[in-house]
């Protein structure tokens, strides 16, 4: 299947709150570091992507934020206008004023139009070769299938017209596993794992886009070996804790509680990790990113996640 970052179009998705945006930002950073001209695009314009890079707000017009790395935010109206002018070659009159507003209403009412201008813009950037790689901070798992399946849906809904003609080449780009792939981000917890497995199934059944990798984010460290854990239990016993308290001058109980909390939390998550591994085809790589005990959530976190992903990918 080749290397993850050899693909031209990578959609990053996952359940809300699993760190999807950070992973997308990190993959884009890695791609640029490896010498590829990379565009990273935030689809749900919440501004979280800009925070990951700490490089000011992003807009529809891609902006170079570091060497070989451009960032943009999807704007369906702007995308529709660009689509109308560049691909459908419509006269200016149709793209401004009340007519443009009308299209917005049609787009609101007609399912798939918003999705197609989003996916269409991304595919177009790939087709035109403006960038070597396009990384998409896509919608959360609830909506991403609708987005990726939009070209097919439009094909069924719209029988004639230019829009239908346009969907063919998009389907070619999306359907080629060497070109396009989906990265699903999960955390080792019940709901994110269940949603990931459900999403993987829906991607297979309802879209023609291949699953490229699953990123498991926020994996807690293994604190102790079995032997060390026995030693830990003895150290945490009343007698030993008393001896330690004498040495420190304060009650060390909270320290042991904190360590025990970490061990217990990690253990409760192991079964979800195993369920995830069992549920995903063996040839799809699982990439593990450790939990980051960080104060910041900006560029520093993005770099650390990029380092972890780079190590997993063998860079």
């Amino acid at each position, binding site marked *: 299947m080749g290397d993850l970052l050899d693909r031209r179009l990578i959609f990053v998705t996952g*359940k809300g*709150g699993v760190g999807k945006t950070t992973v997308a930002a990190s993959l884009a950073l890695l791609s640029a570091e490896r010498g590829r001209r990379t565009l990273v695009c935030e689809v*749900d314009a*919440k501004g979280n992507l800009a*925070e990951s890079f700490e490089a000011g707000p992003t807009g529809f017009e891609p902006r170079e934020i570091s060497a070989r790395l451009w960032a943009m935010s999807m704007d369906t109206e702007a995308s529709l206008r660009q689509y*109308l002018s560049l691909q*459908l070659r*419509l*006269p200016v*009159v*149709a793209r401004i004023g009340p*007519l443009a507003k*009308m*299209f917005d*209403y*049609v787009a*609101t*009412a*007609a*399912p798939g139009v918003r999705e197609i201008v989003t996916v269409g813009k991304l595919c177009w950037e790939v087709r035109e070769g403006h960038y070597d790689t396009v990384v998409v901070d896509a*919608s*959360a798992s*609830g909506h991403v299938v609708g987005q990726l399946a939009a070209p097919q849906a439009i094909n069924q*809904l*719209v*029988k*004639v*017209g*230019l*829009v239908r003609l346009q969907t063919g080449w998009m389907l070619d780009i999306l359907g080629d596993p060497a070109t396009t792939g989906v990265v699903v981000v999960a955390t080792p917890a019940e*709901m*994110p794992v*269940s949603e990931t497995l459900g999403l993987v199934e829906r991607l297979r059944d309802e879209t023609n886009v291949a699953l490229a990798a699953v990123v498991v984010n926020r994996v807690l460290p293994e*604190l*102790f070996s079995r*032997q*060390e854990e026995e*030693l*830990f239990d*003895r*150290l945490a016993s009343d007698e*030993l804790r008393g001896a*330690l308290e004498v*040495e*420190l001058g*304060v009650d*060390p109980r*909270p*320290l*042991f*509680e*904190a*360590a025990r*909390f*970490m061990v*217990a939390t990690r253990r*409760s998550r192991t079964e979800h990790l195993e369920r995830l591994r069992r549920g995903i085809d063996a040839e799809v790589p699982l990439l593990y990113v450790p939990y980051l*005990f960080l*104060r910041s*959530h900006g560029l520093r976190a993005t770099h650390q996640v990029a380092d972890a992903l780079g190590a997993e990918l063998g860079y």
Partner: protein
Amino acid sequence: MPDSGPRSLDELVVGKEVVIVCGSGGVGKTTTAAALGAMAAVTHGGRVLVLTVDPARRLADALGLPEFGNEARRVPPAAFGPAGSEARGELWAAMLDTKQSWDALVHRHAPDAETEARILENPLYQNVAGKFVQSHDYIAVERLYELHREGRFDLIVVDTPPTRNAVDFIEAPERMAELFSSRLLRLLIAPYRSRMVNLASRPFYQVADRILGSDFLSDIAEFFILFQTMYSGFVERARAVEALLAERRTTFVVVSTLEAAPAHEAEFFMKLLRAKRFHVGGLVLNRVLPAYLADPVVSDSAARVVAEADRLAEVLYPLVDAEAPKVASVLAEVGETCRNLQVVARAEATQRDQLSVLAEVVATAPELEADIHDLAGLLRLGRSIWG
């Protein structure tokens, strides 16, 4: 904050008829909504309905229901039994079925059976009702209104759809009314009502026809023409639904974790709710680290254990029957772990202070070691945030 305001979720919920639970995805919204509903049924009595949009089987299982759908079902009283608490009231649950709810809405407002049938068969309608995200928001509010109006429940707790941000949910009725009364819409469907096409709008139809094809365009037009037969009922309804959200009997409970992104969204949403004069009654913070971790004394001793691990190991190793370096390594690991968790706990404390001023009542729930699988688990979570 005035003295008369509620001091706990218990006091907040007892005075309300509708509690709308919202927040970004993955913060435990559905579970929190169910826990609040269960606690209200147990402590306040009456009939409590939890209206969820989450199709996860887990909630149905946790509530002891074999299945649940658009029709409210009562949680069997036996489910409370093993949970060790006598419910004073009844707990009911329903799951929003978007398609069914839309069909019911059409049925209610369509002028005659033929129009109803034509709407239900329209391809655009089928797409709108089934897939269209914003329609999901609207129908959730609409269903809430219907259930409230029926008067069968004393309290309805709503778990809102996982929208990009919950703003879409509160603005859905307004937008729906706007769409139906818009001049643009009338312009769009005009040529399908009469053969006279206004000269000024001609470029639009030419363009639209080129892009979308006339079949699709006529599907759109038919859809809106049919929907316009329901216009007055629909708009009136959307206004009433909107009014219910703003009433005194209604309150919003925002759920978040203290991680940066969800907290950021919760803050934005609470500010927006307040600006729109909705009642932000509660803020529930899930998966919060234990308070002792933010204690400076603990942080000090953790730092010392790391720095003095070798010396401490020399003292302790004869007592545990292990080699000194092994003891030192375990001690250092313990101290390091504590310090790691503290970094996160301190960031959480700051985040919490910033958010707390935006809601009347703030409750925190710890990171749960096990997932919730039954009513007992929901009540355990409920009790930790209720008081």
